[in-house]
């Protein structure tokens, strides 16, 4: 399904507030089931609708070398149905699926030999796979799982995989809560990852669409790969093409078994609900899913960067720029300071980037983002933009550095401080006006920061930031040796022969 790539900029800035901080802590109801499943609820009766979201703390960082791309692939596969949905007779289907796995494995192994592969054997296996896939069609009801949701009036039915987690989202009329509980618990208990090899092709198309045909996607991937040499944050969520080609049902099932545990997930249900009934309903359908020991967190640490890294990506497109500085993730105090800095640099028309770069005509866009590509581990403060011709990426880079230098030496004025704090509080209130928005925020902070109350602490910490903190943090992280610079360069046109050669006949 459509993954939310490149970490959803769950804008921190889109939450929090004086007036409503208290309100929020009063309104969120928290319930932990014996199996470790955590449920967060807000009752909101503005319309008869609900936003139930589930987040699993299982992202691409949790993959191993031979399963890169499996978190995202699994997310796609979990829309293929269960033992009773998407099939006419699972017992009979099962036999064919096993045969498809066997042939598919053999085919992948043979193809992986590259130039030494036996092409006849490949053709034979492809034929055999096709035959079995045709046989399976007798039992498979394509798309049934999605159809049920659609028929019942779902909106925003989707899922997203990030480096840190996978999230399953939907909104429904509020009388469909139990339907949701049945369908979701059924997929956790009885998912059948059918139609695997066809979906693998769709995932390859997704990669082509997001990365290979998109200048910004291509730059992002290469930039991240350069910025992280040890930590898996440098590996694309969707996987490298050669990794996707080796994914199979067995690997997906294993990842599913290990990571999709109730004690590794957070559920949020926001909207027109009855709190007690909701708890009972979730207990009824999810309560019997056993908790299990969880795999360790990623232990690989990125070494301190000891010198600027520069990467060029040639593409048939106009230039773009990305700059990233390594920094600690939440809840380190400097992470709050960097959130503040990001607001100073690029929030709105009073921001420094807008006034000093965009309005000067140096770039058509320039942005700052704290916390890429994820937030479970130490991450990057990223600056990106597109220069306006005749300005080059070098001009834009210089202009960005000038602003970063200013942060180191000039204390931020009180007026700027006040404006940002007011915006922090206002966007907190605005964030409360959407069921889906709240569901996303709560699952994210509970899952990634370990406690949804991070939202409240965030505001408190932002208020603690001083002009001195900003200067100190800017000096600490915005150094040349700590940065990676990625530039999208227009592919040089092939010059017609004879042109530009000097002195030849």
């Amino acid at each position: 399904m459509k993954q939310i790539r490149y970490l959803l900029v769950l804008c921190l800035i889109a939450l929090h507030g004086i007036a409503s901080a208290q309100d929020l802590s009063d309104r969120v109801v928290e319930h932990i089931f014996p199996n470790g499943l955590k449920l967060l609820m807000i009752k909101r009766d503005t319309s008869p609708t609900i936003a139930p979201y589930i987040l699993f703390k299982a992202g691409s960082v949790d993959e191993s070398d031979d399963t890169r791309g499996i978190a995202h692939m699994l997310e796609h596969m979990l829309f293929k149905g269960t033992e009773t949905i998407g099939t006419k007779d699972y017992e009979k289907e099962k036999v064919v699926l096993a045969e498809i796995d066997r042939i598919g494995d053999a085919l992948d192994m043979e193809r992986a030999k590259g130039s030494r592969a036996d092409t006849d054997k490949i053709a034979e296996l492809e034929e055999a796979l096709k035959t079995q896939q045709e046989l399976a069609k007798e039992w498979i009801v394509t798309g049934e799982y999605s159809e049920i949701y659609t028929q019942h009036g779902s909106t925003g039915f989707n899922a997203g995989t990030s480096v840190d987690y996978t999230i399953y989202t939907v909104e429904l009329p509020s009388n469909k809560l139990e339907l949701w509980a049945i369908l979701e618990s059924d997929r956790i208990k009885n998912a059948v990852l059918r139609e695997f090899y066809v979906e693998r092709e769709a995932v390859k198309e997704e990669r082509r669409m997001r990365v290979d045909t998109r200048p910004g996607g291509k730059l992002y991937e290469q930039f991240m790969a350069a910025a992280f040499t040890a930590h898996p944050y440098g590996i694309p969520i969707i996987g490298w093409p050669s990794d996707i080609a080796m994914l199979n049902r067995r690997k997906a099932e294993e990842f599913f078994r290990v990571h999709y545990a109730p004690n590794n997930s957070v559920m949020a249900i926001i909207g027109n609900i009855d709190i007690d009934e909701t708890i009972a309903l979730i207990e009824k359908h999810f309560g019997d899913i056993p908790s299990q020991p969880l795999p360790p967190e990623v232990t690989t640490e990125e070494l301190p960067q000891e010198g600027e890294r520069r990467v060029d990506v040639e593409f048939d497109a106009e230039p773009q720029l990305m700059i990233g500085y390594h920094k600690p993730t939440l809840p380190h105090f400097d992470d709050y300071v960097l959130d503040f800095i990001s607001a100073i640099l690029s929030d709105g028309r009073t921001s420094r980037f807008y006034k000093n770069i965009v309005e000067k005509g140096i770039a058509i866009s320039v942005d700052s983002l704290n916390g890429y590509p994820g937030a479970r581990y130490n991450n990057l403060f990223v600056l990106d933009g597109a220069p306006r011709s005749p300005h080059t990426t070098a001009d834009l880079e210089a202009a960005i550095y000038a602003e970063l230098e200013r942060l180191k030496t000039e204390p931020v004025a009180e007026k700027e401080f006040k404006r940002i704090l007011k915006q922090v509080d206002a966007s907190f209130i605005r964030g409360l006006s959407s069921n889906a928005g709240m569901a996303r925020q709560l699952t994210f902070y509970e899952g990634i920061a370990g406690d949804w109350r991070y939202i409240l602490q965030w505001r408190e910490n932002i208020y603690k930031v001083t002009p001195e903190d900003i200067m100190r943090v800017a000096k600490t992280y915005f150094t040349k040796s700590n940065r990676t610079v990625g530039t999208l360069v227009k592919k040089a046109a092939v010059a017609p022969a004879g042109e530009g050669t000097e002195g030849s006949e």
Partner: protein
Amino acid sequence: MKKRAFTGIVFATLVACLIVWGIPSTFARPHEELTFEPIEFKPPVPEKRILSNGMTLYLIEDHELPLFNISGLIKTGDIYDPADKVGLSSIFASVMRTGGTVSREPDALNEELESMAASVEVGMSREYGTINLSTLAEDIETGLEIFADVLRNPAFREDKLELRKQQSIERIRRRNDNPIQLAWRNFSALLYGTDHPFGWYTEIEGIESITVDDLKAFHAKYYHPNNLMLAITGDFDTETLIAQLEKVFEGWESADIAFPDIPTVDPIPEASVNYIFKDLPQSVMLIGHFGIKRTPDFPDFFALRVMNDILGEGGFASRLMKEVREKHGLAYMVGSIMPTSYYTNPGEWFAYSQTRTEKTAEAISLIIDVVKGLRDTPVPEDELQRTKDSLINSFVFGFESSSQIAFQQMMLAYRGYAPDFLETYTDNIAKVTAADVQAVAQKYLHPDALTIVTVGNKANFDRSLDEFGEVNEIEIKQPAPPPAEPMPEASEGDMAKAKEVVAAAVDAYGGLEKLQTVKNIVAEGRATANSPMGPMNLDIKEYLIYPDKLRQDLKMPQGEMSYAFNGTSGFALTPMGTQPLPPEMTAFMKDDIFRQPVWLLASLMKDDDAIQYAGTEEVMGTSVAIVLAPQPSGEVLKIFISEETHYIVKMSFRETEQGVAVNKEVILDDYRDVDGVKVPHHIQQNVEGELFTETRLNSVMLNAELDDSLFQEPK
């Protein structure tokens, strides 16, 4: 097979009471045993009010959160762009906000809004314009005052227009980067032609021609209270608010607006197969034809809605998604869009897919087959029911927030929907039959007359696109820079006077004979450049060799850099390596050499039939004569020669950098004698009227011994 879960949300009365209900089904699977408790829901109904100046309001008080929002709708749109200034209305919308108001400078406006965490934004669509306000409830009064100020008194400041034009031009330069954007632009243009508002797109020339007066005229024409509707929601009291609105809009009079006629197309589809080369591993394909223009009485709307959901707008349950993606793995993104809300023209109906190059033709034929299927065979009853249930059950999501409800009401009124459209919506969907769906498919879908646009690399296509029809290959060019400004027509008198002025200057510089002995010039000095990060000092050494070689060595804080041009090609030496100079830059260098006063005057003396006299002017306190001469690039050089000293004190010219014309000036003074030739030692360069570099020379040598290696690219 499954049984349908018959659930529905029904609009009962005009008070809009939604009831969600359901009956149990008899099947064994747990989700099919559910019954759904009916829900009664009375969504708030916007109150419609008309202000004394004719402005229509849709109001909903909503005290859940201390917020306040206005969404305004203006009857205007991109369709009213003049044909030779396409892009005017969207630039207008942007500068209406960024240009500040008569009494508020842009920076002050931004500061005022953002310091109260409020926003005012102006937008433009094909058939309407928007203006929105969002504030906290505590700031309603100030918010309204600013909102009204932007609406009534936008200042359209010149510099903000200029900036926005530059940004538009940059976007034009970037418009071929994204294959979807590339395909879409060509698709609309193929259907409507580039002289129709639905088919045209911005070009640099049109953008450059837009003036402040154009924006003011656009504002004066469409922005009147009687042409504006506001949807207002949030934490306010209606009567207080009405009084506040009357006050901020006091004296703003309604006016008659003569809307220009918008040409309407005759939507007879014609088959055409089009191909655009882009070397990517995946093709983008748009397949479709004219869409549907809505009429006030539009009975086919509901069957069409159902049909297109089945076809490709119904997400994962739609046929295109199931066939192309889920069964064949030929795409990640696939679907179809059917606009049914345009009121001036039928818009575009299309199916889209992004598919690996090696399966391009296969995907196109699969899509066409799916389209044909809807015409040829009635939709099975269960699929029809599922789709209708989906539309009916999800209808409630149009009523999630008061701002959404008020905006929807306003929009329906704007577009001329029947007053009972919402109340009867679910009933009308429920009534749609398989025969209705097939009938609208046959009436509105024309798989035999499709416009196909494919962006990709045909060298790797599975089959030639010929099978779909004769292929029209569209060549995409990077937008060309605007042509050089021609020399004005001149009288003989002007030319004679020009010769006279130049001759006097040649004498002042040391005489023609002396000037002609100068074969090279080597100058050294120190320059201050106004870089984006502030003033930057650099040491500069320049070598000029008659007639066409130039080298500059620059020492900057961040390293050394050199440019060299040998008359044909050039290179740049940077800390990051050696790069060839793009042709654009070498063209600038040719002009630069041409402008060297010593050689410029000598060449103007020799080739004097191309120069013209253009009167006198006052420059920096002295009277100057102006002479015009064409540069090697074709751009006109304006030379300002002092009538007192006969030195060149200023030159102005235009350079076109990657499609953008930039006005530059060179100011020369501190003339000193070097071996009997007068050479300026203080050189100032302005770009668009602002100081860009200032150079002071500390040594100038004529006819120095020079090494050829200066112009050889290091291996």
